[in-house]
């Protein structure tokens, strides 16, 4: 029984990290890069209109960071719940 509840807690912890990451994923691409692109384009980042920058550069950089962040958080959660591999 203890094992089952431990697994359920582990899964919930995983989902929390997952939803957080996917929220950022959605924000930088779909919200900043597409839905709000015209608004953000009023702001400049050097010679880049900001919305355009998110669509062609910023979202991609964020995706890379997100995956490494997820891997790092999940390794910590694996250890905490004692399910990390050797």
């Amino acid at each position: 029984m203890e094992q089952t509840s431990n697994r359920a807690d582990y899964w919930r912890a995983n989902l929390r990290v997952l939803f957080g990451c996917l929220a950022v994923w959605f924000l930088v691409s779909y919200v900043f890069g597409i839905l709000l692109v015209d608004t953000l384009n009023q702001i400049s980042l050097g010679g880049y209109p900001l919305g355009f920058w998110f669509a062609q550069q910023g979202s991609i950089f964020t995706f890379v960071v997100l995956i490494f962040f997820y891997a790092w958080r999940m390794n910590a959660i694996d250890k905490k719940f004692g399910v990390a591999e050797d």
Partner: protein
Amino acid sequence: MDLQTLIYLVVGATFVLYFVLAIVARAGSTSEFYVAGKGINPVLNGMATAADWMSAASFISMAGLIAFNGYSASAYLMGWTGGYVLLAMLLAPYLRKFGKFTVPEFIGDRFYSKGARVIAVIALLVISLTYVIGQMKGVGVAFSRFLETSVEVGLFAGMGIVFVYAVLGGMKGITYTQIAQYVIMIFAYTVPAIFISLQLTGHFLPQLGTGAELTDGSNQYLLQKLDMVLVDLGFAEYTATPDLMNTFLLTLALMIGTAGLPHVLVRFFTVPRVRDARKSAGWTLLFIAILYTTAPAVGAMAMWNTLKTVQNTDEIGAPDGNLLYAERPEWMKTWELTGLLQFEDKNGDGRIQYYNDGNEDFAAMAEEEFGWNGNELTVDRDIMVLANPEIANLPNWVIALIAAGGIAAALSTAAGLLLAISSAISHDLLKGVFTPNISEKNELMAGRISMTVAIVVAGYLGLNPPGFAAQVVALAFGLAASSLFPALMMGIFSKRMNKQGAIAGMLAGLSITLLYIFWYKGWFFIPDTNMLPDNADNWLFGINPTSFGAIGAAVNFIVAILVAKMTAPPPHEIQELVEEVRVPRAS
């Protein structure tokens, strides 16, 4: 040394390298043949996956696509990278934990159904075959352009090379050649981009150069100037944002499709541990991002270079404002020979006019005021990458490197696809369904034979493309998004999802996506069999068939959940399997 000899030497050296790697890393067991013995370092797997993923189209055509579409091409940039976030968090670690050989195998086991496995195999075959046709064509074109052979000879040479290292080496041989191919490809792509960025903006990093001021003394930003000149020539602004709904849906369809592509997913079966799969996805995207964030710079800068070459004063329509054809630069002459660049002097003034004659108001004004009789210059999008070294006056070895890079991009993706096809046949169909008692030795032999057959079929289709090669993107990504991704994700994230739900969902997603694409593109892409003209006025709610994979995926999810609710839950041991897959190690 003349350019042609140099190209032969550089390209020849890369082939020798691939052969040596294939002999050193040849596969001796089915595990090595399908998943490289699960012993690939996660960083190296990241490189191999990046090469597996970035095709001839990414290498040669994407920058041009961005150059001519500006902001609208962002869907491809975000879609083809953001898919890795989904793949890394929703699929890859769990499929690695499952720990078998193929994607259909997971679907078959998880949904305790050979039927589900066969549907997954069919989806995989359609996706991978349509995709591989373009690669074989890409190999032929790259060979013919750089080595001055005919497309046929190039294609046969490509088939021969892939045959040697893929049939012999299996996944293990393919992995090590893909790592080498990544290094060649990324070097070839970034070196010319860095030089062009330095020339135009003084910035070393093209990613910064695109957002910087031009060094031509105008003190204006590159993108600002590009917007201005394009509008002056009757085009839309480079940063204009039309049709955001289809950009949104296309991005979503490409992301979901990317995450569901079997030849990419299977690369994450090759690393030793679950945590390696997570990390490896990060490295993969980092290696992809180096090219994908450079491509918009190459696109914008090549577009600017082209406009500036043709239009040599700021005032549009000035009598001496356009380049004299007789004084055109060397690179234009070179690429005219290939037909990728075409000039037709419509108004007989000996000068080159490049503008948007599809814009009726502008065309009428230009005819009246400047005496222009239509756009005179046709530029193929592939030039934006291929002619870059010449535009930037780079030495010949850079041109040779681009040749080797283009061929590496096409070969690495073709090999990955061919492996996915052959393992689906030998492992899923033969071992899994038709001859379960086959010995390991015979299965390995079957794998090699089906790989050979796949190469021959792909080569044949590359030589005689069935007329829909250009539609491959819509089809491959639409099908991956609407069939495999939802089934895989629900197999992991929903313990309640059962056989009936998954099968109904896959069939519904597949058929509605195929139907929608065929409705506007023609049945099986046969010209003139479409039910409605393929334009925005006729699309259902204005949804472009290319973007429909996102809707297909939603239909798959909804149908699967409804059917699963109405039928019995999966057996206990399947629910146990899901529990197992969710944790890296049993506690």
